[in-house]
């Protein structure tokens, strides 16, 4: 019974990862993170990802408050936030989010406020989606650990 549950969970995890990679939501950098996880840092991936969530939400709030300001003109400042967001997204393998940042930055460099607003909405949407999917992934991980009764590092696909 337990064996079946473990197999099913593993299949769920692989299916989810395959989906995320196939859709370009995650790229090979995420695999690098998984490979770095080991016995000395068994929660490495979730730790890094949680830092990413925390930082991203701060950045998204800053971006939104900049753009909501009627007198907004500091595209430079926005560029700085975007570079940070791009960098951290790239570091965890959040490929689609990084691509939206690139487009966002282009709009910002043209001082295109409407374009920036559209990009921000897309960014918020992508971020939300990724966060949900990664939470789902971590949940499956936790269930696998419980089902197996031992801790082991996340498998690659």
């Amino acid at each position, binding site marked *: 019974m337990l064996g079946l549950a473990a197999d099913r969970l593993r299949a769920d995890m692989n299916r989810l990862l395959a989906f995320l990679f196939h859709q*370009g939501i995650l*790229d*090979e*950098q995420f695999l*690098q*993170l998984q*490979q*770095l996880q*080991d016995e*000395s*840092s068994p929660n*490495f991936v979730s*730790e*890094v990802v949680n*830092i*990413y969530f925390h*930082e991203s939400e701060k950045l998204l709030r800053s971006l939104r408050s900049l753009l909501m300001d009627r007198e907004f003109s500091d595209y430079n400042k926005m560029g700085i936030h975007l*570079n*940070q967001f*791009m*960098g*951290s997204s*790239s*570091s*965890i*393998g959040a*490929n689609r989010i990084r*691509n939206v940042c690139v487009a966002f930055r282009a709009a910002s460099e043209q001082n295109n406020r409407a374009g920036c607003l559209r990009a921000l909405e897309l960014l918020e949407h992508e971020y939300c989606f990724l966060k949900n999917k990664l939470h789902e992934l971590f949940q499956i991980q936790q269930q696998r650990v419980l089902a197996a009764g031992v801790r082991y590092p996340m498998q690659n696909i």
Partner: protein
Amino acid sequence: MGMAAESQFHVLAVDDSIIDRKLIQKLLKTSSYQVTTVDSGTKALEFLGLHQNDTINPNTPSSSPNNHQEVEVNLVITDYCMPGMTGYDLLKKIKESSSLRNIPVVIMSSENVPSRITRCLEEGAEEFFLKPVRLSDLSKLRPHMLKTKFKDQHQKQEEKAAFQSPKQQKTEQNLQQQQQQCNNNKRKAIDEGLSPLRRRTR
């Protein structure tokens, strides 16, 4: 794992991004290096300067503090884009310091800007890595640290023997020639357009 502390190389990693600091720390530890991370160029210089000042061994006749650090830094790896002091500024400061200039410096950047890469390499950076940095990139670090260690040991010998024999002078010259050759062969990312430039999927 399994390496005695004294034989481990110590790397100072500089990055203002908390995620990248966590990543580079893990990458370096996985590669069996001792790691210290700081979030700015200023703190990096403090860390390097601090150890220069307070670990001078009064028993040695030698004058160079760099050889007698208790916590020696064998390599500095720094992000390029940082607020305040950039990685390039930090590189310059290290290379301009008589006590620090032998420490190999590696630059990391998320942007592939050829002029930036050239500038850093010309200023004395040993390598330029594109972010995100991979484990395979770090395998390039050891030769630089070994080369410097060998060079430092040699300089120590030079200083101890206040009056050099002609034979010793010749050895020093040979070493310098080897260094130059090493520098000429140094892979310049811009010329080869290869390893630091990785294609992103999509």
